């Protein structure tokens, strides 16, 4: 496993470094915007531009960049390896371990970016305190509140995020594996992978709906419908179960039609 992770690290550390630099770069831009906002004081025309287009926009960008690595690395790595370039299948590493290493690396990369991103946002929160612009203060308020006053809730939220991430990565990887297994033609494989992606998503939602409906037998249809989407803990359990099933499907199919074949 260590060697497999080392291989993933070698493949992607440069792009991970670039992503980290981008995060720091965006944080610096936000800080500059806020410093400028503080210096112009109550001037409304500047402040509106800074708060909406500048600081808050950049903050959203910072938050959106973080999950990127967690999804992209395992999927990119898997798609490359099952293609004609996958040296890893020439080694004596079993397929289940190869796929697991990709997921672990994706989760680790995501966690690293998350920590840096949250840390930067937390630090920027101090600067936001000095801001006179209410939009900027509010944008950072919730972040700081989560991280300082609700550590457990913050951890839970991030944990759920990781499970969701692993599930999505496996959903895409499983769809690729099914597409490759179903056809030998490359364009058909891509098309089938897309079809399988939506099909599995549909089956998952249906299963989830059926289970929630059974357990909410006494409630009305509306309550059940609202409950389905509101119950995060339910969803996470489902995602966890689906992720395990998808991991098995992905491993078995990849192993049956390993690359170079």
């Amino acid at each position, binding site marked *: 496993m260590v060697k497999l992770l080392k291989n993933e690290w070698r493949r992607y550390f440069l792009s991970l470094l670039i992503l980290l630099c981008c995060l720091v770069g965006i944080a610096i831009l936000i800080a500059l915007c806020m410093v400028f906002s503080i210096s112009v004081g109550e001037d409304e025309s500047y402040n509106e531009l800074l708060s909406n287009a500048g600081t808050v926009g950049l903050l959203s960008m910072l938050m959106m960049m973080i999950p990127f690595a967690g999804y992209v690395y395992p999927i990119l790595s898997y798609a490359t390896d099952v293609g004609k370039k996958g040296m890893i299948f*020439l080694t004596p590493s079993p397929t289940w371990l190869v796929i697991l290493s990709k997921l672990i690396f994706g989760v680790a990369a995501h966690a690293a970016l998350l920590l840096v991103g949250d840390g930067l946002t937390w630090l920027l929160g101090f600067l936001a305190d000095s801001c006179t612009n209410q939009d900027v203060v509010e944008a950072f308020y919730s972040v700081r509140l989560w991280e300082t006053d609700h550590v457990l809730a913050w951890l839970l939220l991030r944990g759920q995020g990781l499970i969701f991430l692993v599930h999505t990565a496996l959903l895409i990887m499983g769809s690729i594996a099914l597409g490759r297994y179903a056809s030998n033609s490359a364009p058909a494989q891509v098309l089938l992978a897309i079809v399988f992606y939506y099909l599995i998503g549909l089956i998952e939602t249906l299963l989830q709906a059926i289970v929630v409906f059974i357990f909410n037998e006494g409630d009305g249809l509306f309550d059940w419908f609202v409950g389905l989407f509101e119950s995060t803990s339910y969803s996470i359990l489902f995602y966890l179960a689906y992720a395990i099933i998808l991991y098995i499907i992905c491993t078995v199919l990849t*192993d049956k039609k390993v690359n170079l074949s």
Partner: protein
Amino acid sequence: MLQLENLGVRYGNQIALDGMWYNFLPGHIYGLVGPNGCGKSTLMKTAAGLLKNYTGTVLYEGKRIGTATRARVAYLPTHPVYYRYMSVEDMGAFYEDFFKDFDRNEYRRMISFFGLDPEQKMVNMSTGMVAKVRVAATLSRRAGVILLDEPLNGIDLIGQDQVRQIILSLELEGRIIIIASHMFDQLEAVCDHVVMMNAGKVLIHGDLQSLREQYGMSVSDLYRSTYAQLMQMQAGGGMRTW
């Protein structure tokens, strides 16, 4: 010993290997030859443990070929397989990480012998240079079975001589070396056995000296006459001319 017992592989309706039986013995260099599409590469992939959907049995030292046997089987695929981030040295590091039988010093010696820059990125190299790096990495393993699928593809004449020199210098005791090629002329100098294939089956096989004596011609000429006859038969008696 590498044993193939009634080995069959199909790609859809197409038969790649048609119930093939053969035993590759240690201490020999086998030339696996035949026209395009006769099943050479499929046989190599199966022996490397990369093909799963086959019928029959492939055994190495009595154990079924699979993921675990890749630790003892070195395989050079016909198409270039490497990661884009890799330099020549990175390739060595990768092999060292995953193969216990890999000799990094031997690899460096071969890279130097080929006149390649260890720091150069593989993506910036020509096809021939990449082929040399891949040959060096594969032959630097002290594996029990070495499978080379078209190892001279893309390599210049001097480079081909160098590859042949390296193959001839390998310690053969307890090892099986199988080289697949459709250009047997290039391999006759290094092989001591030949397995000629056609339509997924063994057509003629044996050690080179016996075949030369038996047919009264060089093995390259035997190859040409054998496959010319086959083509004539397939063409309905008359060989097509240009």
